[in-house]
């Protein structure tokens, strides 16, 4: 017992000496990082962060562990991609309602940059700024650091109960009804929507929130996939294994130009048990997004412009 006590004392001493030092170093790095990004992102970045903080101060502490001060670091990184790399053009963001809503988008591009850009657009280009809560894979919480960062940046584990809770709190929740089918589709099937899941429609009906259709153009060309090595993926226990030659060239996505279009909110009032009605609604949303995609493709000047 004595041994463990003195070990504890030594640990405590060491902590007392070391903690202030590491804290100082961390805060210095943080300040330097803040300074650089503020220059790059303009003065209104801090105002936007403050606006978010005010919103959550009104809503009460976030039960999922979101912290606007951490969420802003996520936004800083993706803001660089949004503004400089993909040069995103955002259309119709004023359609996003002030309260809770379900954002439903096409999904593509092997890595979920489309989701990140939708979130960034709502943070940087919407007035007032909004924090989109997206649903992460169920194994992400097992990753140290990453899980903590994701939670604090406002992401939540993708189970229906969580989405319901957030929508009822008046948050924006982003879903991709195509799921893995969409993100892993090969280059030859770009801008053709895959089968839509129906869970999102049940969520919208249960919580009574509107659905905002979103079309992302540009992501479908960022990685050129020649197909999916299904047997290998199955052997390695992966959901998909796309054949993407870019991986050999450093793995960066192609700097395609993103066009993000937000459609007008759609409201549905079917009974939750009305399966046929739900199917029809899902079809309606899918058709809306497809026509938004077609329109966007027609009006853009080229993949990179």
């Amino acid at each position, binding site marked *: 017992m004595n041994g*463990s006590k003195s070990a*504890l004392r030594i*640990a*405590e001493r060491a*902590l*007392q000496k070391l*903690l202030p030092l590491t804290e100082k170093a961390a805060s210095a790095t943080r300040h330097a990082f803040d300074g650089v990004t503020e220059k790059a992102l303009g003065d209104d970045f801090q105002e936007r962060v403050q606006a978010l903080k005010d919103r959550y101060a009104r809503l*009460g*502490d976030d*039960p*999922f*562990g979101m912290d606007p001060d951490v969420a802003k670091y996520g936004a800083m990184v993706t803001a660089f991609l949004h503004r400089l790399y993909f040069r995103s053009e955002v259309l119709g963001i004023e359609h996003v309602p002030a309260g809770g809503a379900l954002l439903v988008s096409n999904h593509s591009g092997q890595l979920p940059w489309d989701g990140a850009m939708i979130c960034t657009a709502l943070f940087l280009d919407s007035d007032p700024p909004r924090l989109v809560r997206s649903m992460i894979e*169920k*194994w*992400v*919480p*097992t*990753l*140290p*650091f*990453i*899980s*903590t960062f994701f*939670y604090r940046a406002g992401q*939540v*584990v993708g*189970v*229906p*109960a*969580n989405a319901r*809770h957030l929508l009822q709190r008046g948050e924006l929740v982003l879903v991709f009804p195509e799921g893995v089918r969409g993100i892993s589709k090969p280059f030859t099937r770009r801008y053709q929507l895959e089968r839509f899941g129906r869970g999102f429609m049940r969520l919208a009906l249960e919580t009574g929130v509107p659905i905002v259709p979103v079309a992302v153009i540009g992501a479908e060309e960022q990685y050129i996939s020649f197909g999916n090595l299904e047997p290998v993926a199955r052997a390695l226990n992966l959901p998909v294994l796309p054949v993407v030659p870019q991986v050999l060239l450093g793995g960066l996505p192609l700097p395609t130009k993103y066009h993000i279009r937000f459609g007008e909110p759609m409201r549905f009032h079917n009974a939750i048990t009305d399966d046929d009605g739900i199917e029809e609604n899902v079809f309606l949303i899918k058709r809306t997004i497809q026509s938004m995609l077609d329109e966007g493709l027609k009006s853009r000047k080229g993949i990179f412009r």
Partner: protein
Amino acid sequence: MTQGSESDAIVVTGACGRLGKRLVRQLHREGPVIALDRRPFPDKPKDVEHYPVNLLKSNLSEAFKGRAIRALVHLGVAHNPRDKSEHNHMWNVAGFLKLLEWVQRYQIPKLVLLSSANAYGPRADNAQFLSEDAPLLASGAFSEMRDLVEVDITAQSFLWKHADTETVILRPSHILGTVRNAPSNYLRLKVAPTVLGFDPMMQVVHQDDVVQALRMAVRPGMRGIFNISGPPPLRLSKALKLLGRSKVAVPYSAAKLAMDGFWRMRIASFPAPELDYIRFVCMVDDSKARNTLGYFPEHGLLATLRAVDDERWD
């Protein structure tokens, strides 16, 4: 079965535990209380009858016979991982089955079981707030939690089978206070180990709020399963900070190895699989208790956390 009247007795098992004593002190002001616990009850209120019985072996008719009993409150689920697990299993599960027999034989109109939100189990893919119909999955990874889950499930089937006894199962989140359970013990550590890179949200509830919930569950007309939680959830790191504890973050694999070793050397007071409780979320939605039971936690966040440092001799 007729509804018990106010003057009928309430039987409390596990009454000599720290939570049990607090409950008995509240209940005996309102009506007669019978305490069942094999441990001594030195400072018991005068009007409380204490039977130092073993639920498994003793004949409980001495305590029950010829008495009008309006409720039986079972707090006696022991989670003492130090005991040999077969011994614990006998005590918890077989003891509870015996108790159910007595409930039927003496037609007790109300059974209240204090289970725990820990029975849901901490899991990476848990919903942030689990409702009462979520499956109890703690027993998969934690053999130590198997008894609790089994007792809870037994009580559930009793609830559905025996409509003439109002059965209430309470599943509170981490109970903090002078009680000696894992979360309170953990928060009492001056230097608390945490798992590197993990900082889950957690719920805590003050021991006296749990006592209130138990009192509400005893009222006639209440039946069903209720999650109980206290003030809004907070991050583990924030709880440690508010209590002024330092923390040492240890990588999971190292922590698991160390805990296994400490457990064998009898330094640690909880086994390695329970590390998941400081890695993943295991929180509950208690809106049903608030709406149906009329439960509301009276203790705020700071009061609840600081309760672990209260005098420990009561």
